[in-house]
């Protein structure tokens, strides 16, 4: 243990503890900006400086290890003055139009500037003579240079968590800034739209492209029937936007609020998640059959396709391996295609008068909805995508007292869901849902795990794997008798890369792999409330699994509406109609 003194108190911490962490032990919160729990230490904002007796300079506490005998002051006159100066410098190159900023009241710079009482007249305004641009070319992400404080959290996110490197530092000195490769527009670079950068941006420099006004416009149009669907992960995070602690489930309140906002049909993406399991589960079994029985050269492992960030990633980085992807559309897009066909007919509304809105924990869904092939209903299947954050803003704007609103249920049809669908929101959830169904289809029995909870594939490890032995299978699946079904799960694209490298050299031992672009899966998505960190992801995941346990039906193939849909419209999984509406194809993309 290392012994030191912080603000007059003796502290003992393990070797390697930083001064920032050591101060936390003593309940002293040192302000930070470039620091983020999920990322490596940068030590470049310098807001966290402290005074150490005998040192010539004030070291950054995030980057300085505690050393034996150190005497540290976290709030001395020198420290206060230095921090105030540094904050004033940051403010001097920051567009301080807080009144109109989307991140106002959720901005780390704003909080500190207010805490330290920064007078923005101290230093000259450096923005005046610079030409800053707002990049609005991407369907998903907006980048406003005038609000960037160059902490490089986005750069580290894109490099460390996602291995995409869409954002990097260019130029030096006064011209140093965060930019794309060759400073091209965001729509033209290798970007997966995952939005993890947005989630780690301390200010409003990176935000999702917002569609709030378009949604209000649709809601105000009497000729339109506006449908809203909400993804599984939204219900365990939306509360954070509206005064609840992380990990509180607000499913009923959310449905009630959406009705209050004026949506004509308040439906559930979970329904489509169950539908996805039906299609994807059968696709897996079909591929296994073609491989094992028909000896076809069919790509295995099969990989999930629900995460649009992951899809764009593999299209760019591994275009030769797109055959591994399930052809199933994501739940959002399955929902969109069914809503403008079967559902439209069912409620007697012309599809062109339907506006499909989806609330997603994701920024990449905005891009996905705008993919040219996503128009199998004869028009764009999903019209407008908003994030959990945008919905939070809309609810605030509407004046609804979210905390007190009595819960409501989703409308029918396409409002029924199962526990299997809910867990889509957490990493490993799609795999668990698929196993619950596929195992039962093949053996006629429930998965051999206590209470249907396939715990070995849950958790937050970056890559996890497991296997299930198929025994005493039903006669029609006899070719699977005795087979050890091997599955793997990865979340975060850096982890996905590891899986793909094995596949690329033909060395993957798995049959089925779930990949989610974002750490933690959708609960940690780029459209989720800020902040998102390991602790918050854990709480949201726990809420997801609680939601699952509380559901009456917990297997996708038992969703009554899904059963009805197959009976009345689709026929059978992988059938003709499914093929047309629920499956898709992928695009080879350039790497630069």
């Amino acid at each position: 243990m290392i012994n030191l003194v912080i603000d007059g108190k003796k502290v003992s911490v393990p070797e390697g503890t930083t001064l920032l962490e050591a101060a936390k032990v003593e309940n002293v919160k040192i302000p930070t900006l470039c620091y983020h729990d999920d990322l490596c230490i940068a030590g470049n904002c310098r807001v966290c400086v402290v005074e150490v007796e005998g040192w010539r300079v004030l070291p950054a506490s995030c980057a300085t290890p505690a050393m034996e005998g150190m005497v540290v002051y976290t709030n001395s006159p020198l420290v206060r003055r230095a921090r105030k100066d540094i904050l004033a410098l940051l403010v001097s190159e920051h567009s301080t139009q807080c009144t109109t900023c989307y991140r106002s009241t959720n901005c780390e710079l704003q909080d500190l500037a207010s805490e330290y009482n920064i007078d923005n007249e101290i230093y000259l305004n450096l923005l005046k003579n610079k030409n800053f641009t707002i990049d609005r070319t991407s369907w998903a992400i907006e980048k406003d240079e005038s609000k960037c404080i160059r902490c490089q959290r986005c750069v580290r996110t894109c490099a460390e968590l996602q291995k995409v490197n869409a954002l990097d530092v260019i130029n030096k000195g006064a011209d140093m800034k965060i930019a794309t490769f060759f400073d091209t527009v965001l729509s033209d670079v290798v970007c997966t739209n995952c939005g993890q950068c947005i989630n780690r941006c301390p200010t409003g420099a990176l935000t999702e492209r917002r569609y709030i006004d378009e949604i209000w416009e649709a809601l105000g149009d009497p000729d339109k029937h506006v449908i809203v669907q909400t993804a599984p992960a939204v219900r365990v995070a939306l509360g954070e936007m509206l005064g609840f602690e992380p990990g509180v489930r607000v499913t009923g309140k959310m449905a009630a609020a959406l009705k209050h906002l004026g949506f004509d049909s308040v439906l559930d993406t979970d329904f489509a998640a169950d539908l996805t399991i039906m299609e994807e589960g059968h696709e897996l079994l079909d591929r296994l059959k073609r491989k094992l029985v028909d000896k076809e050269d069919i790509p295995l492992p099969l990989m999930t396709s629900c995460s649009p960030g992951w899809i764009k990633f593999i299209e760019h980085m591994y275009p030769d391996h797109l055959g591994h992807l399930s052809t199933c559309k994501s739940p959002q897009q399955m929902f969109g295609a069914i809503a403008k066909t079967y559902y439209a007919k069912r409620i007697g509304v012309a599809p062109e008068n339907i506006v499909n809105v989806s609330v997603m924990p994701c920024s990449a869904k905005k891009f996905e909805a705008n993919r040219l092939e996503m128009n199998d209903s004869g028009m764009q299947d999903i019209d407008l995508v908003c994030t959990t954050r945008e919905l939070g803003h809309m609810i605030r704007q509407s004046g609804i007292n979210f905390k007190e609103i009595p819960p409501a249920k989703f409308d029918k049809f396409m409002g029924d869901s199962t526990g299997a669908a809910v867990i889509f929101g957490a990493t490993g959830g799609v795999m668990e849902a698929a196993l619950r169904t596929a195992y039962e289809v093949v053996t006629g029995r429930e998965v051999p795990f206590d209470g249907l909870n396939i715990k070995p594939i849950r958790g937050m490890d970056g890559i996890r794997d497991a296997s299930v032995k198929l025994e005493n299978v039903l006669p029609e699946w006899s070719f699977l008798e005795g087979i050890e079904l091997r599955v793997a799960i990865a979340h975060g694209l850096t982890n996905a890369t590891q899986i793909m490298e094995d596949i690329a050299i033909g060395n993957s031992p798995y049959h089925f792999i779930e990949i989610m672009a974002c750490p933690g899966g959708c609960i940690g998505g780029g459209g989720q409330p800020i902040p998102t960190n390991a602790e918050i992801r854990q709480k949201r995941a726990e809420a997801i699994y609680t939601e699952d346990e509380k559901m009456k039906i917990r297997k996708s193939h038992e969703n009554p509406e899904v059963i009805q849909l197959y009976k009345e419209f689709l026929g059978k999984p992988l059938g003709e109609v499914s093929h047309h509406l629920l499956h898709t194809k992928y695009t080879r993309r350039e790497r630069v």
Partner: protein
Amino acid sequence: MAKQKLKRVDLIFSQDCSCRDILAAAFSKSKEEIIQMLIDSGLKGRGGAGFPTGLKWKMAAEENSNRKYVICNADEGEPGTFKDREILDRVALKVLGGMALCAYVIGAREGFIYLRHEYRFLIPKLEKMMETFHKWMDEFDLDFRVKLFMGSGAYVCGEETSLIESMEGKRGEPRNKPPYPTNNGYLGKPTVVNNVETLVYTMMIVRIGADEFKNMGIEGSSGSKLFSVSGDTPKAGIYEIEMGMTLEDFVKEFGDGDTKAVQVGGASGFCVPRKRFKETTIGYQGGLKGFSLPTGGSMMIFNSSRSMYNVLHNYLEFFEEESCGQCTPCRVGCQQLLKGIEAIKRGEKSHKYLNDLLRLAETMKLTAKCGLGQSVGNSFSSIVENFREEMIY
């Protein structure tokens, strides 16, 4: 006490010794002996920061690692220094010899000369010298090879951790310290980064002995050093002089009779006005009473025809561009200092704003991530404090 007169020395460029003989003598000694010799000599890094060389080698030698590196920092970028270029042009074998000494002491098999981009004309000559040198290494049976690595023109890459980052193919930006390169340097391995001139002096100390080296100079600043003299002087050039001279003696020797100020240590150094020439000694801070200034060798002389506002403006423009931009105090601070003195000059800001800027310069010294940002305040404060009226009118 400071010695009174300038004492010219001729060690670095002298040709009266064979590098090969020096190396032969060195390799007959133990590693510990060489380290002790360097420590006894009091040699400090000649790049300007003044870290004791013997100690640096000792730290790297004590690291347990299968790979270690020696890097010669030839990214001479401080405005007003041009000594390393001359050393590499004229006595490159001494530099290589110093690297071999270091390699022998710390146990490195690979070394690099990180050569300033603008010095690429030296490449053919250096490659020829390296050929000779590598033959010697074979003859001495020392498994050590030196490669050239070209810088790309960033001033900050003279800072050793930025230099290492750039060698690793990354943006040349300073790292957080600790860890220091002697423990975690190039490719994460123990690495000694020494200035060109420092390496030559390690050879000279082996030749003349620690005592004789220590006999030169003053307490805390032993030996001699190369000075790059420029500006308003009839005798611009490179001079090897004992450490510890006073600026008064220096100006007497090199000034044009009308010297108003001397900038010691380049843009990142200190400006000394005429009234303080007498009390200012050139040497490392520490062993001396009074006012002592370290320098990497840059000595810029300004006479009364010069506007110190223009001098400062020039430095700040340099820093505003050469900051890597990574940390807030340096990136934004440099811009504020530059735009600030411009605004005062134009009358848009009151002269009292200089006090705010002086405070900002102090914050930069205390909080910037690396030596670059920490030293911008040196020239700023010393020029503004001594020539305040020139900033305003």
